[in-house]
């Protein structure tokens, strides 16, 4: 029942969940004129806040591509088997557990199980139910035989950094499970520190999981074959830039996160370079790691096969 694209030929409308670091490549491609070079124009780029709204926008045909996390694509696939993942933008799980500075927890060297055990009985802020942030907490608790719904108090704080850091700093929650760069921002203002970071390698089983993606549906993609191909080439060039000169990346990221604390931006550059893949094409092992994590953590009950969902 999806409507076709409503945008003119040569143009792509992209709906993003947020301005998170995962979508830095889009910024680079735009900033450097890469899209123009490849012959595609970006139309509207609404920030939609949640996966449900990205899905709604895709279904209504007001956007051609959704920029979100793989969870959103899995959710969409449940109601639309034409769902396709177009590109891979981040292949690390970029959600961190951040604890209040005052919280008594094991040091950095401790095992992930010990660290997870330190969170039992605590109030943990997440973005919302059914989100990737909740999934990480559930997954970590699952590994030590606990149930996050019972053995901790999960508090939904929405996606705004101010709410999250505010709740942590004012002691309303003991810890946060939040996406980058909230951890870096919390550290920059001294509200807390990053405690468990899958992207840093703290959770070996989640290593290299596909996370930030561009996705869409065949109803839309069929009409925009050339544009999507051009988009994909542009992403390739943008990812090259991120893996290129570090100073240049620092400068671009500073522009992207123009209002953020410079210390947080500094901290982010090396992390970004390590979690961004070298090619926008979705790698099978990254996909499978992500799929396994989603099913294990109960984030989704079904996930399509690699071959069914990958565009190509």
């Amino acid at each position: 029942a999806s409507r076709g694209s409503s945008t003119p030929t040569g143009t792509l409308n992209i709906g993003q969940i947020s301005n998170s670091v995962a979508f830095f490549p889009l910024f680079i491609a735009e900033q450097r004129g890469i899209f123009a070079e490849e012959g595609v124009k970006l139309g509207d780029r609404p920030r939609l806040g949640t996966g449900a709204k990205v899905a709604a926008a895709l279904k209504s045909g007001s956007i051609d591509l959704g920029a979100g996390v793989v969870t959103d694509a899995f959710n969409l696939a449940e109601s639309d088997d034409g769902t396709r993942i177009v590109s891979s933008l981040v292949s690390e799980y970029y959600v961190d557990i951040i604890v209040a500075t005052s919280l008594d927890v094991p040091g950095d060297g401790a095992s992930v199980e010990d660290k997870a055990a330190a969170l039992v009985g605590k109030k943990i802020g997440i973005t919302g139910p059914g989100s990737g942030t909740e999934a990480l907490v559930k997954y970590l608790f699952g590994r030590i035989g606990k149930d996050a719904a019972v053995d901790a108090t999960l508090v939904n704080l929405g996606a705004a950094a101010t709410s999250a850091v505010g709740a942590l700093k004012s002691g309303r929650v003991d810890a946060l499970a939040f996406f980058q760069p909230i951890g870096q921002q919390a550290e920059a203002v001294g509200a807390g520190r990053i405690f468990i970071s899958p992207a840093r390698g703290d959770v070996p089983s989640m290593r290299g999981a596909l996370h930030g993606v561009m996705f869409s549906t065949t109803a839309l993609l069929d009409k925009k074959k050339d544009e999507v191909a051009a988009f994909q080439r542009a992403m390739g060039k943008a990812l090259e830039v991120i893996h290129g000169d570090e100073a240049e990346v620092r400068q671009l990221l500073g522009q992207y996160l123009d209002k953020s604390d410079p210390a947080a931006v500094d901290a982010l550059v090396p992390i970004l370079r390590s979690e961004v893949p070298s090619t926008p094409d979705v790698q099978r092992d990254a996909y499978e790691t992500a799929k396994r994590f989603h099913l294990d953590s109960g984030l989704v009950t079904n996930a399509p096969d690699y071959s069914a969902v990958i565009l190509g």
Partner: protein
Amino acid sequence: MTEASGVITETAGNGGPVRVAVPRTWWQRHGTTTTVWVLRLALIAFVLVLWEIAGERWIDITFTSKPTDIVTRLVEWAADGTLWLHSWITVQEIVYGFLLGAVTGALAGFVLASLNLLYRVLDPFIMALYSIPKVALAPLFIVWFGIGMHMKVLLAAATVFFLVFLNTAAGVRDVDRGLVDAVRLMGGNRWDIARKVVLPASMTGVLTGLKVAIPYALIGAVIGELVASNRGLGYLINDAAAQFDTAGVFATLVVLSVIAAVLNVFVGLIDKRVNKWKPIND
């Protein structure tokens, strides 16, 4: 028109007015109310059937769900207790928020409307505060009031306050001078004037304020739950939305609508009571 009647029986004596008993049939007594309810039910039925059919044939139920799915979800939730747990929490927040906002709003309205200069000075600031989207202040609310029930009650009260305040103030400023003077002549002080003239005379304003504020008590509480919560109907909406469970979202909205309707009935009862002196519209 209820004047037409059958047998006319004199009941009053000589000195007093002439009164007659007008025994009314059941239908004369309850006819309108019955008609109203029948029409309401018919409307509900019509909308539900149309929705169900549309959901099956013409529209994509991914985003609109359909009545049978919603009912199924409600029955499920009623059975496993989810419904009662979350509704109870939200109802508490709504009621406390509504009461807090309505009482402070009505008081502020009465006081400020009679202090003309102060009202004029503060008016733009009140409007400016009122215009701030509460969601934008959510972080501040969390920092100041925490993530518990207090925060949601205050968020609900904040919206209710403004609506009741502005409506009350408008009502108060419209009170007939003649009636106020009558009480002054009887030696009434400010308090007598407020209680015996301004309050009854501005009841239309106050009640309109209460009526338009009901939905905002709900919206305020739910927004609070969307922002910082793990319980309540706002949480249920959030949870269902994240899981693409449209039936769940709509089931929660149905519960919210029912709560609103019940509160509306309460305000309607107050309205009937205080306005019984007014002519019935015909």
